């Protein structure tokens, strides 16, 4: 307790607090720019950390991490372009709500949800880090594979009205993810002699292409048919009391899923947001509102993606195993500033660790404040006429894709998937399952291979592990529930009548 108080007081030192605020604000800006990811933000701040003491440096990086996870929701809500992969699920309800003139409420809800998820994950980090770290160690390849399969069952519920089209979209995503060099035998798959395809397709250009570009094309196709500006209601940033009560379960479920997924190495916010969205929707009394601007949908997605921040730091700090890409970069940053994560960190450098904890706790409040401010300011973007706004969005997509690898190939990928996404949208094929397939496909295949190699092709390995068996049962239940809820209502009515 004294270490924590000392850490908190270190985090409240003026310069440390200022650097933390800088990290959060820059994180929000970077997160909101499509193509700029949290890991890039951390890399950008690295040179600054050389001149700072380790505690201050860590706090600044952690602020960047939290801010960028929230920042992705702003462009997701306003422009239908997730700023980071973790905000992909926020598009599903955030954008429709903005189209109803309630962008401020959507961004405000995102800020509150991110705060809740982040705060709960930091509390878990502080109280339970060593215990929860053992969970990270217990995951084996069969468990990762089954987790990916469970994640893929979400395709059915993110399909909107048509499950067949949703599944087609998802399977195509899985096939897209298989393009490139095979991870085990090094075979070139579906590259057709194009060297740029040997690395496959990155998630970010595919996501920008499938979400943002079709919207730009849609608007130019329908130019003149609708008003160029959607009037935004700037009051009502805070949810009303009944609205807040209705989203509490979503916040708690989303945060729990985010913390759990964050702890599991190699996963991250992109998986957590869809899983949480799916589970909240499954148990919600207002299932029909999801996809049309449900606050619960935003709450689930945002609380889970910020819930992964504390969760991902647990194995990183306790075991030196990064929970996701961002913590992998942070691990490198820690080594550079002379901090060695691992089992001895808490005993060798308790002040640094607890300064980080204190800084993380404060960062949530700073993020909430900044987020609510953004909720007041950023919806004004939608006041820009579409004939001005949409070309600007297109340039942001181009620049965002280019910054990933300094390669124009990624920009062409964005445009090609943009055309694909536009055609899909015209024919009612949902884009979210395809993104899910691209995100989860590599994880599923590589862990399936590892599991079979270790078990010498014994498929029983997937039911021998309790974790794997649990995910298998959850997947079957998930598919069953999705099939049941997709049954036409007439059949259900006629069954009731015949009884």
């Amino acid at each position, binding site marked *: 307790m004294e270490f924590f108080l000392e850490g908190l007081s270190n985090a409240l030192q003026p310069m440390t607090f200022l650097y933390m605020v800088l990290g959060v604000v820059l994180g929000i800006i970077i997160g909101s720019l499509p193509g700029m990811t949290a890991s890039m933000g951390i890399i950008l701040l690295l040179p600054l950390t050389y001149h700072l003491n380790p505690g201050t440096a860590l706090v600044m990086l952690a602020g960047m991490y939290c801010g960028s996870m929230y920042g992705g929701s702003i462009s997701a809500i306003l422009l239908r372009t997730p700023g980071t992969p973790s905000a992909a699920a926020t598009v599903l309800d955030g954008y429709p709500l903005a189209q109803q003139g309630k962008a401020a409420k959507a961004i405000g809800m995102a800020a509150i949800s991110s705060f809740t998820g982040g705060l709960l994950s930091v509390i878990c980090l502080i109280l339970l880090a060593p215990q929860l770290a053992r969970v990270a160690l217990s995951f084996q390849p069969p468990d990762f594979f089954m987790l990916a399969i469970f994640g893929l069952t979400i395709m059915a519920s993110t399909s909107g009205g048509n499950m067949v089209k949703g599944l087609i979209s998802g399977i195509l995503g899985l096939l897209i993810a298989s393009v490139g060099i095979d991870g085990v035998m090094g075979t070139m798959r579906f590259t057709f002699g194009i060297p740029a395809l040997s690395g496959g397709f990155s998630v970010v250009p595919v996501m920008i292409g499938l979400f943002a570009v079709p919207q730009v094309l849609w608007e130019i196709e329908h130019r003149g048919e609708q008003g160029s500006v959607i009037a935004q209601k700037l009051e009502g940033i805070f949810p009303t009391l009944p609205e807040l009560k209705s989203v509490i379960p979503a916040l708690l479920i989303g945060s729990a899923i985010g913390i759990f997924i964050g702890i599991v190495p190699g996963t991250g916010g992109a998986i957590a947001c869809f899983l949480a969205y799916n589970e909240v929707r499954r148990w919600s009394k207002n299932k029909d509102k999801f996809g049309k601007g449900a606050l619960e949908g935003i709450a689930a997605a945002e609380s889970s993606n910020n819930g992964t921040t504390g969760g991902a730091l647990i194995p990183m700090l306790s075991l030196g195993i990064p929970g996701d890409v961002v913590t992998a970069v942070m691990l490198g940053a820690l080594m550079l500033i002379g901090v060695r994560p691992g089992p001895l960190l808490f005993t060798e450098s308790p002040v640094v660790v607890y300064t980080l904890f204190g800084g993380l706790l404060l960062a949530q409040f700073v993020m909430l404040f900044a987020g609510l401010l953004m909720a007041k300011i950023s919806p004004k973007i939608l006041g820009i006429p579409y004939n001005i706004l949409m*070309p600007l969005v297109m340039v942001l997509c181009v620049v965002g894709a280019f910054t990933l690898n300094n390669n124009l190939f990624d920009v062409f990928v964005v445009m090609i998937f943009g055309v694909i996404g536009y055609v899909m949208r015209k024919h009612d094929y949902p884009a979210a399952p395809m993104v899910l397939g691209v995100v989860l496909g590599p994880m599923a*295949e590589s862990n399936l291979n590892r599991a079979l190699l270790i078990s*010498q092709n014994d498929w029983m390995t997937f039911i021998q592990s309790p974790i794997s068996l649990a995910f298998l049962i959850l997947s079957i239940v998930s598919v069953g529930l999705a099939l049941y809820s997709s049954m036409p209502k007439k059949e259900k009515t006629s069954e009731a009548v015949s009884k």
Partner: protein
Amino acid sequence: MSKVDFFSGIGIMVFSVIVFILAEGMPKAELGIGPGDYPKFFAAFLFVLGLGLAAQSYLKRIKQNKKFYSKDGIIHVGGLLLITFLYIWAMPYIGFLYLTPFYLTAAMLFYGAKKLFTVSAVSIGFSIAIYWLFTSVFQVILPRFTLF
């Protein structure tokens, strides 16, 4: 469901067969799954889904009243795509800072913006702002003029 869905289903079935054939030619693995096994599995699944979609559309036999593409829509979308692809292609030679204002102006006018002064000012201002943000703040190198 519509005739378009019926033909989409057929198209998906054909696509999945092509993927299956391509994957069949990949090396087999003695342990674990080979590079071709994973895509083959999903191609088979896709074939079934395509068949389901085509069958669903055929059985419902709804008359297609919805027009998916209009002539104006195709011209506008096609035009924007064309200038965007030209923009991306020309960027390594002309550079981001010089080319983007022209692209933005063209795209905005194509979108129906009327005030040339406003359009030009926004295009130039936005291009400079983005260039500064990415090159000076984020330290990301954007394409520069390299024609000579």
